[in-house]
């Protein structure tokens, strides 16, 4: 099926800032296909991001776009959604932005189950500032601020989202390009907080410091570590060592925040009559 990328992109804003070999472009195309598939009204859809490489994405998109401060996307987005619940809200950002400096906003957006779609481009590093370790950089790996190997344990962003209360959580990788849009479509259609984690690669600041000789090596890794949820059930703990589950990891129905607040308004108005 042919997708109309052009109609979603602001004329004259490309090329993007991302390096050759960066997975963000693949993830962005998946996001565009998903938004196109859902037929979102461009005037009635806000795209919100924080700071970092991935957070530059909304600037390229022909929607209501808000490039906020570092980590604050979910908090700004919550304000938009609460003030105008009829708007579609899509957040985009990286791992450091979303779950380090923005971690508090991220978990509380999940807890509230506010109706938005948050796509995390997890490339395991702070790319824009030159490759400092993030909360998802694997323990032992090299970054510009872990020259002797990363001593930090890592966050599993999807597990964090599930634990915090997001009602739709899915994960895929930049290698699995066609799965990206399918999962984001489900996330957009889901009523409540949807988190889609896209594992991707930063050859410039992460790959070159670690064991990856080329972008192809990094893509191969994404291919190798991904195990679809359905297949994981048939695998032994040993076989699952070092793997990450992909697909829809969690989905539940729970009251959505703006709908809950509509009830608050009804109660307040009934009491004041």
């Amino acid at each position, binding site marked *: 099926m042919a997708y109309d990328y052009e109609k979603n992109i602001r004329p004259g804003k490309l090329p993007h800032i991302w390096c050759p070999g960066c997975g963000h472009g693949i993830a962005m195309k998946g996001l565009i296909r998903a938004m196109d598939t859902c037929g979102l009204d461009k005037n009635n859809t806000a795209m919100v991001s924080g700071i970092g490489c991935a957070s530059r994405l909304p600037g390229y998109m022909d929607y209501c776009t808000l490039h906020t401060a570092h980590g604050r996307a979910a908090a700004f987005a919550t304000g938009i959604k*609460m003030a105008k619940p009829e708007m579609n809200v899509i957040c985009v950002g990286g791992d450091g932005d979303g779950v380090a400096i923005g971690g508090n906003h991220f978990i*509380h957006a999940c807890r509230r189950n506010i109706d938005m779609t948050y796509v995390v481009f997890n490339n395991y590093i702070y790319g824009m500032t030159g490759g400092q370790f993030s909360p998802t950089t694997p323990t032992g790996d090299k970054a510009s601020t872990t020259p002797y190997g990363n001593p930090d344990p890592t966050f599993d962003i999807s597990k964090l989202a599930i634990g915090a209360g997001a009602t739709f959580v899915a994960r895929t990788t930049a290698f699995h390009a066609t799965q990206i849009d399918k999962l984001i479509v489900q996330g957009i259609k889901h009523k409540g907080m949807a988190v889609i984690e896209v594992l991707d690669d930063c050859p410039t600041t992460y790959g070159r410091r670690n064991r990856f000789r080329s972008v192809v090596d990094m893509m191969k890794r994404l291919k190798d570590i991904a195990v679809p949820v359905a297949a994981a059930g048939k695998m032994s703990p040993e076989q699952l060592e070092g793997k990450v589950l992909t697909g829809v990891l969690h989905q539940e129905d729970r009251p959505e925040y703006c709908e809950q607040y509509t009830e608050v308004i009804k109660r307040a108005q009934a009491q004041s009559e």
Partner: protein
Amino acid sequence: MAKKVALLQGNEACAHGAVYAGCTFFGGYPITPSTEVAEVMSVELPKIGGAFIQMEDEIAAMASILGGALTGAKAMTATSGPGMSLKQELLGYACIAEIPCVIINVMRGGPSTGMPTGPSQSDVLQARWGTHGDHPAIALAPSSCQEIFSETVRAFNLAEKYRMPVQVVFDEIVGHMRERIEFPEPGELEIIDRTEPTVAPEDYKPYDTQFGDVAPLAAFGSEYRYHVTGLNKAEDGFPTTKAELVDAEQRRQIRKIEDARADIESNEEYQTEDAEVIVLAYGSTARSGRYAVDRLREEGVKAGLFRPITLWPFPEKRVQELAKQTKGIIVPEMNLGQMVLEVERVVARDCAVELIGRVDGEPITPTQIMDKVKEVL
């Protein structure tokens, strides 16, 4: 019909003033001594179909009102010292992106946790310079409960008119004291709404200078789509590092307030015409100042009170004029010398400037002021 009258705390009056001004969005976080503002907003906003949200932290509360404001809502948050420190990041965002909003800061002792229930006026320079980078600032300092109501309304008007964050800073004494409030009738106080664009959507630029220094602001969710960023940007809202564009944008933002001083500045003067010594005070301290002036006049001392209601931009022209006709200006403030620096800057050597600073969590008394006046004369 008689006006609705109530005995209200300053903080409560603030919330009612916000609703009167048309505020429909409040994002907050609990902090003493400002919490009552949030509490009243949580009661009042759902009644009018607005939205109250208690966010996960102070930064998020500030972020939420900026998101809300971009959808077209009049939005407000309220906080105090440590919370205001946290909000500085996104106060800067509101400045550069030119997003109208109102921030209430009920000042308490500091730095850090300081004295949560003690009054202070130690955030007045933070209100001007707290966030990094060059930016304009508007800060209003009411000194009574009725004035908190009307200045909160004015804060919204200025925020919407000049497309920027406006702070209302008052000390804990005014925030927590109770006074009789007369609710203005609808239409009695002027209400200003932001200018919305009329150009074709494809021609819309969020910082279009063809409309002067304040461009019309479209709402997210309208037919206008545009980009908002915290980066230095060009008229079209997209990031730029071109020196001449960055320079023009920065200077325009300062100019939009400098050129509007006459509209923004507001002061109260009491017995200043023939004053040989002037007490320059704001907030609750001005109440002690006024009492001191009355007592001094009874004793035959020609004292007067100058009370800036708009702290920023500072009413420098009027203070310069007063400095030329008086022997000294006394600046009592519940800090160790903040607005006095601004007074010294604008007065230069035209008259003596004396600080009465107090940071022990107790109010400055009329006696303290009277003693200092006699010292100067």
